[in-house]
């Protein structure tokens, strides 16, 4: 896929957000990845041109960060947290089940355009084991529910993130990372029981923070 003039305009917009344009390089790489499903030489060159740096300089950055892919994720990115907490609480079994279902291993893309990745802690350990689809949360999965998510996506069915919107695609999320005002912030499942666990206990037991002392 080649980058269109729309993308080039968007790259310029990103660069203009910062006091020094080069600060935009990470979002710019997300943007070119949102068009091509991976970071290609063409994408890197486009970023470098806008910033007035060499392609080698931009490549050095692109290869440092794990979210930039060098194989096209045509449809969905499937992440499974196998860091200690999630892994030991069942993420290892979830990963094995997904690997068997998708027929690929870590960082590989299958014929249907699904990439599988063992990911590190997703800042969702209270919801272990955690899976992500196109980086949206799929909390509290089991091998069975994880495979069912992939099956539903393969059939083209609607799948809802546990905390977040209906799953779109890998490239759509990449576009969000460059331009986060995607209209999907509302998702009313965003704050779940686990995020409310302490508040509910406090309400049940009539606990609250002390009030403001008189002199204030």
């Amino acid at each position: 896929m080649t980058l269109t003039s729309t993308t080039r305009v968007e790259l310029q917009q990103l660069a203009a957000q910062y006091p020094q344009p080069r600060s935009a390089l990470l979002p710019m790489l997300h943007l070119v990845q949102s068009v091509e499903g991976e970071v290609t030489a063409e994408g890197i060159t486009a970023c470098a041109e806008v910033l007035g740096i060499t392609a080698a300089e931009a490549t050095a950055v692109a290869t440092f960060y794990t979210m930039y892919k060098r194989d096209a994720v045509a449809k969905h990115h499937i992440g499974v947290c196998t860091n200690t907490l999630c892994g030991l609480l069942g993420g290892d079994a979830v990963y094995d089940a997904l690997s068997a279902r998708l027929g690929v291993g870590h960082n590989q893309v299958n014929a249907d355009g699904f990439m599988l990745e063992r990911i590190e802690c997703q800042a969702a350990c209270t919801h272990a084991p955690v899976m992500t689809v196109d980086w949206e949360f799929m909390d509290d999965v089991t091998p069975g529910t994880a495979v069912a998510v992939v099956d539903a996506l393969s059939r083209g069915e609607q799948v809802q993130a546990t905390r977040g919107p209906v799953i779109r695609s890998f490239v759509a999320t990449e576009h969000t990372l460059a331009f986060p005002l995607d209209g999907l912030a509302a998702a009313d499942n965003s704050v779940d029981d686990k995020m409310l666990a302490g508040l509910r206990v406090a309400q049940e037991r009539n606990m609250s923070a002390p009030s403001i002392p008189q002199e204030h």
Partner: protein
Amino acid sequence: MALTPVITEFWDDPSLYTLDGYKSHGGYVALADALKQDPDSIIATVKDSGLRGRGGAGFPTGLKWSFVPQNDGKEHYLVVNADESEPGACKDIPIMIANPHALVEGVIITSYAIRASHAFIYIRGEVPHAIRRVALAVEQARAAGLIGNDILGSGFDLNIVVHAGAGAYICGEETALLDSLEGYRGQPRLKPPFPAVAGLYASPTVINNVETIANIPYIVGRGVDWFRQFGTEKSPGFKVFAVSGHVKRPGIYEAPLGITMRELLDYAGGMRDGRPVKFWLPGGSSVPMLTAEHLDIPLTYEDMAAAGTMLGTGTPMMFDDTVSVVKAVTRWLEFYKHESCGKCTPCREGTYWITGVLEKFEHGHGSSEEVETLVTLCNQISGRSFCALGDAAATPYPAALKYFRDEFDAAITTSADEQFNPSASYVFAEAVSR
């Protein structure tokens, strides 16, 4: 000790993430108040509050702000560290999803105090939902005139950029974060100079954690005396604790610093199936583990240090007796090896070697000599690395050895999976009987 929801108080209102929702609970009143004060007096308030950074190190926030040279005619910057990637840490992302305006209001007040006209919120890239909620909060605040030029008629101008990272734990280290935000590989810088003097674009910069900044509206709005009713002299305030692992009700529990793990555990319903606590970590994988003996120690910076560990991110991970400590430690080292930025030799090579030896133990092929080799390897990394990631990587093994030496001895001949059936530690019903 009772739970005290402050940052989390209105999380059950689904509109809290919007400007109107936040305002309906008293949001942005502290900002209006702050803009009428002298910036220095806000710095003084935060200093007097005793607030300590919630990103892990617990550095006094007001003191950090006061290191920024004032009236130097230079551009100043505020950078919010929203990279939350420490294994076990899961409290900043929930704050940004549920209550993003508390962060945004904190950013505006802090920027005013340190005289910054540009602020950046650097959020790890893997959490699009947190990013879109913070971006929307910034947009709504901008539309309401709370960000931009001449905010609320005060003459103060501020621009806020929400920036997505791209997958690198090291970018949570504050100077690596700055390099990343300047569009480079995220590798730590030599200190000094400290960011307060030469940070982003070589200008004076304050870097604070999400939860730290989310405290600011409450401190400025309710005052030092109110804030100091929570916690201890050295650890004032409340904390968004995130309790994970083998507990009945994992989740977010906000309480004063100084609550004990036993109390938090009780609120979280206790351990699943009434099993015993085997080991737990008060705040991320980079702090030494503790055992059931330590459940009654107050969760404060000073008490955790006295117990030989650290409060860290204040996000306890609880493991029961179905878990192999050998396997847990090996997995953490695989993480540090993967995330080492490669800049300095002790960490780049050391994490590789430690992980290799630990993997032998995990598979039941260790040796009694290597139990000691690992100690030597950790000593050669700790204190000799360029940044604290190296020290962190040298932490899990010595701590585990202190309490569970017998398990490493057993792993000389018996693999972790033979010692502990892996499925017994799974949390779903597909697990075999325990």
